[in-house]
């Protein structure tokens, strides 16, 4: 394996990461071996440090300096199942959770590792904890079970009347038809399976906005009950929590199984920690340092700290700034030079290459027309992170048929469908889904499980583009195993016709963010 140098400050911090735990660095010398931070292990998370992944190294940057993990509520066991926030938001995974880490923990500890807690680390809580097949969605696709009440709970004090009925068509995991945990149980619950989001770069994700939603103008944004402020609704796959504080409370209840809500002090410390933390790739296995002086100002966690939130779908403030210094690149090593030039071209493809964006709810339907001729950056428009600056739930087809990736059962293969399939039938008077009509088949109704709206079926909040190399797989349902799979999805979905070179350039570009 080829190694590249990283800046001295990061190298020094890397040495400090010995404090993270007993086994970490020995394993970190192998590609894609992850440094796992165990709940309650103590130690210090350095102000700045880097972690290996298959594409190079990802880095994190604590703006306020090193963090003593001992006694810190983000890192300590808060509930009854041995987990902490860090269990699913690992520093080595850009504060998300990679499949590499999940499998590593299974190999090390099997089902007794708190990550595999039955409540949501198993396909259903009543499955035998020690068996790998009980955790197949976590082990195969990196998915955590999210059990949501049906019908939806009232929001902001206003009852939510669902516009549709939901039926379970297929239930490979068994939870949606389970008499105790399923849709017809005494506490009717819809179980969907989703990837954890990254707990970093959050100033770009959650912020105060005006009352009316910029994309769905007849909708009021949710308020943070602690501040009364209208919030951007861009955290969580379904935007069900308006702020980091409410998210921490619900995560402690649902994922950590706390008996009592965390104290105000603990919540303050969790939110403060998350709010000062930046994560991004810092080193490319082929492209070398991504944070060297004179390099692209979009790259690395320090640049995320320097930049402000804003709309980047324009030539005045392009969201990933400029890669001109890499096109042509001046590196002496040919492989490095070619990689950097590929990244620069990838940014151009992302920013300037138009295609027909079609049948995408909350994009085409917000006054743009269907189809529209635009670029990736039209929807992924938020400076530095590539989310949508407006409340960003979108049905691009990752969970709704016919576009969602499915495994078709057949007699010649053992591959079976893993995700549930729901049939959504919209009420006669409801406004139907704009591109799928009144009957929709979906693996995850997404935002519609919160809003109760037909138009929201399959809509998922966009995820950040940062630290991607550290935290495969991608999309909320883990349906893209690699960045190339992700690019291929879009190429297929919109009939873009990317050349092989364009696909490679886009993949390389995404890998350095």
């Amino acid at each position, binding site marked *: 394996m080829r190694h590249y140098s990283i800046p001295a400050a990061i190298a020094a911090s890397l040495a400090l990461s010995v404090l993270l735990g007993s086994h970490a660095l020995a394993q970190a010398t192998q590609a894609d071996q992850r440094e796992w931070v165990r709940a309650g292990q103590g130690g210090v998370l350095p102000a700045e440090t880097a972690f290996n992944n298959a594409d190079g190294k990802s880095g994190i940057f604590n703006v306020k300096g090193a963090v003593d993990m001992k006694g810190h509520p983000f890192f300590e066991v808060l509930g009854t199942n041995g987990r902490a926030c860090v269990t699913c938001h690992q520093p080595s995974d850009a504060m998300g959770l990679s499949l590499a880490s999940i499998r590593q923990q299974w190999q090390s500890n099997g089902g007794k590792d708190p990550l595999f807690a039955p409540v949501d680390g198993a396909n259903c809580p009543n499955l035998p904890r020690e068996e790998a097949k009980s955790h197949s969605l976590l082990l195969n696709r990196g998915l955590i079970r999210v059990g949501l009440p049906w019908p939806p709970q009232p929001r902001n004090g206003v009852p939510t009347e669902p516009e549709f009925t939901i039926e379970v068509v297929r239930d490979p995991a068994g939870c949606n038809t389970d008499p105790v945990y399923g849709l017809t149980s005494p506490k009717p619950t819809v179980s969907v399976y989703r990837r954890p989001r990254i707990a970093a770069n959050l100033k770009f994700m959650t912020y*105060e906005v005006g009352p*009316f939603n910029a994309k769905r103008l007849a909708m009021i944004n949710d308020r943070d009950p602690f501040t009364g402020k209208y919030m951007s609704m861009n955290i969580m796959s379904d935007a069900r929590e308006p702020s980091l504080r409410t998210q921490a409370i619900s995560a402690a209840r649902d994922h950590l199984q706390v008996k009592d809500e965390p104290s105000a002090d603990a919540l303050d410390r969790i939110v403060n920690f998350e709010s000062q933390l930046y994560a991004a790739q810092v080193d490319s296995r082929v492209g070398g340092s991504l944070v060297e002086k004179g390099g692209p100002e979009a790259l690395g966690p320090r640049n995320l700290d320097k930049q402000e939130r804003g709309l980047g779908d324009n030539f005045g403030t392009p969201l990933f700034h400029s890669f001109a210094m890499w096109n042509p690149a001046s590196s002496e090593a040919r492989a490095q030079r070619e990689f950097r030039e590929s990244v620069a071209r990838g940014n151009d493809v992302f920013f300037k290459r138009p295609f027909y964006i079609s049948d995408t709810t909350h994009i085409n339907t917000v*006054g743009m027309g269907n189809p529209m001729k635009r670029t990736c950056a039209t929807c992924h428009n938020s400076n530095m992170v590539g989310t949508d600056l407006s409340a960003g739930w979108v049905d691009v087809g990752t969970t709704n048929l016919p576009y969602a990736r499915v495994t078709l059962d057949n007699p010649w293969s053992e591959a079976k469908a893993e995700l549930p399939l729901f049939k959504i039938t919209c009420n006669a008077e409801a406004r139907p889904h704009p*591109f799928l009509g009144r009957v929709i088949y979906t693996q995850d109704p997404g935002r519609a499980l919160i809003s109760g709206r037909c138009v929201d079926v399959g809509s998922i909040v966009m995820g950040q583009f940062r630290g991607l190399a550290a935290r495969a797989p991608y999309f909320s349902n883990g349906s893209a195993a690699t960045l190339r799979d992700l690019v291929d999805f879009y190429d297929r979905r919109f009939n873009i016709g990317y050349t092989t070179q364009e696909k490679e350039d886009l993949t390389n570009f995404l890998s350095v963010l």
Partner: protein
Amino acid sequence: MSRISSHRLFTIALPLALLAGSVGAAESQRLTFVACPVFQDTNTVPCWLAEYQGETYFLGIQTDSGGWTPPLQGHQVLVESVVTAQPRVCGGIVLASAGSVFDKRPSGKSAGVDLPQPPVISTMRELDSSCRTMLPENPRYNTLEPRRGPGPGNAQIAGLQPNAGAPRAAAEPLKPPFAAKTFELHYEFDSELAGLTINKLQEALKYADDIKAKAVEVVSHRASVKLSNGKQLDEIPKIAELRAKELANVIRMFGLPKGTELKVRFVADAQVGNGIDDWTRRRSDIIVTP
């Protein structure tokens, strides 16, 4: 009155001047019809067209969100328009707004001439899989100078600046005596979402707060459209109720001043269309009473 589900039912001929494309003679001619929208690409942004009774009409071009609302393929579109005398754009006779509240700034030029305010467009509620015509770029139609091209724009949209949502300077407080005021919200056909005139709701709620209103009353309406073939096209029977319900929920989520009563009602009977300003009757009134 029965609803019309397909544009193929429109068989009544238009005046000959229109059919002949004699737009000068038909300058003030109103044209209201339902058809599949047609996507015509150009070397910049696409044009939106619609075919009606053998003629092609130009509706508008792709632009930023918040301008006009281009059609959605997969649905028919209701067009409420006047015919202009402008040179054809993308091969279509140019239709314009009949003076709607949805008007925004021009979306660009064609062959150096400003494009008019686009007609009032309503995406029909249900799917129509036959509406999928996409035409490739045709050099003959490469005359557009859009306000925004097919890629990144030239500047940030003011409303989405980093500090959008930051508190604004307080306006001078209103002084009594206060008067009752009515704020009108308008809708696309068969839609309960007043997206394009939601600013009127904001104004109403601000006024209610400023004067600590005694009551805020929502009255939602249902309307018909008189098509150019003479037929009346009714909105769905429940639309007035849906509009009232939707608006009331938004107001509850937004919150009213303490002591302000929210009253909600709707008028289910469709108001008959006249083919001139039918969009004005697809409406909710918000009446703010001191």
